[in-house]
């Protein structure tokens, strides 16, 4: 034990193990920064929520898209966009809503509690819409 203690006390700053520890920390910092700040390469698509819960995700991948129906709301997905084709609600706001195509845009059917939302791709100019 005594010998070990003296060894550390007399040792010079740059030892192989010091460098290794610094190296590991450096790598961790860089890796963390990369994870945090590199733009995520997220594919674009449509997310459908019912009563606030995500019930379906459909990616824009050029395939034949399904026509989806949740609680009386019929959603049509085409390449890069989505819209409500028909709905059992009386006000029909969701049906009158123009197709959505930009990240963050959404169509809300309040009476039927269904939300259609675009994720990924080109960002919408606005963060929210007041109504």
């Amino acid at each position, binding site marked *: 034990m005594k010998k070990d203690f003296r060894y550390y006390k007399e040792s010079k700053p740059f030892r192989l193990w010091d460098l290794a520890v610094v190296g590991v920390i450096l790598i961790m910092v860089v890796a963390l920064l990369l994870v945090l700040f590199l733009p995520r390469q997220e594919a674009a698509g449509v997310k459908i929520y019912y009563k606030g819960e995500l019930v379906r995700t459909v990616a824009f991948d050029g395939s034949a898209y399904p026509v989806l129906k949740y609680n009386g709301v019929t959603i049509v997905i085409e390449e890069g966009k989505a819209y409500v084709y028909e709905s059992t609600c009386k006000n029909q706001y969701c049906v009158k809503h123009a197709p959505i195509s930009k990240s963050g845009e959404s169509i809300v059917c309040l009476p039927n509690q269904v939300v259609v939302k675009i994720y990924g791709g080109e960002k919408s100019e606005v963060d929210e*819409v007041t109504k």
Partner: protein
Amino acid sequence: MKKIAAVLLMVFIAVSLAACAPNREYMGFGFMGTFYSFKGVGGVEQKELEKKLLELENLVSVDGELKKINEAKAGEAVKVDAATYSLIKFAVDFNKNSSALDISLYPIVKLWGFDNTFNENSSLTPPDDQSITQTLTHVGLDLFEFDDENMTVTKKDDLAALDLGALGKGYAVSYLLEKCGFKEGILNLGGTIGAIGKEYKVGIEPPFGGESYFAVFTLKSGEVCSTSGNYQRNYVYEGTLYHHIFGDNGRPVENSLASVTVVCGSGAAADALSTACYVLGAEKSKELLDLYDASAVFVYEDKNVSSYKLDVNVTSKDYKLKVEE
């Protein structure tokens, strides 16, 4: 050498801590009769936010604290929660500045079917003149006495009733942004929106459908925006549109406005102002908006838009903007 290692370790810890403020994206239905969404950083978990939403709903809704007042007999001093009491007093003071917002109109709101039994899917028939005249005798803030010390409300009329629907969402947005510890974010409660920590771009929904928004403005940290209009909470009976914003004659306000959006530092004020300004029209709203240090955008049925002290960018070519002096 040790110093370098220490600095690196500090950087590592700092970055780790920053990563601890997680990105939030919440959404849900059924709170305060509408949907909500939050996008931002830090603050409470979704469950905690929804718990607070339920608490708030009880404070402002006619099924919560207000029920005690509304079901009370004349002469009975009713004690309500301090938050509910202060919001009622805010609305009473607001009414002194502008009679265009009257929370005692609730018997009329109910008569027309726009209370919380209203459902976008229901079929309604407007009431006859006699019942409107009759119901109006139970309307007026002079039918209430307020005791600030004991926080009690006493009615002079059995059927007089209060409704904070015109202020509740705005109040809730301000409250939540203040109490949930969000580092930054944008909270949308049924179209009433508040920002904290940084500025956000907010679109205004076109009252006539179509695109997602027809105009865009910047909502700064600490500001709340609220929109009122005839295009929501309404019904058509024999070709006539009846909506939920009432004048002192007990009938839906008739004017050339489709919607009004107000931006203000106080959520309750923004909400109250959007209703009052819809009733008043652009010209008569200016003084009131100045009083609350607020700004507004007025949208007319003919798709003309006028803005008062709000820098708004009209993105749709169908709408024409005029800046009010």
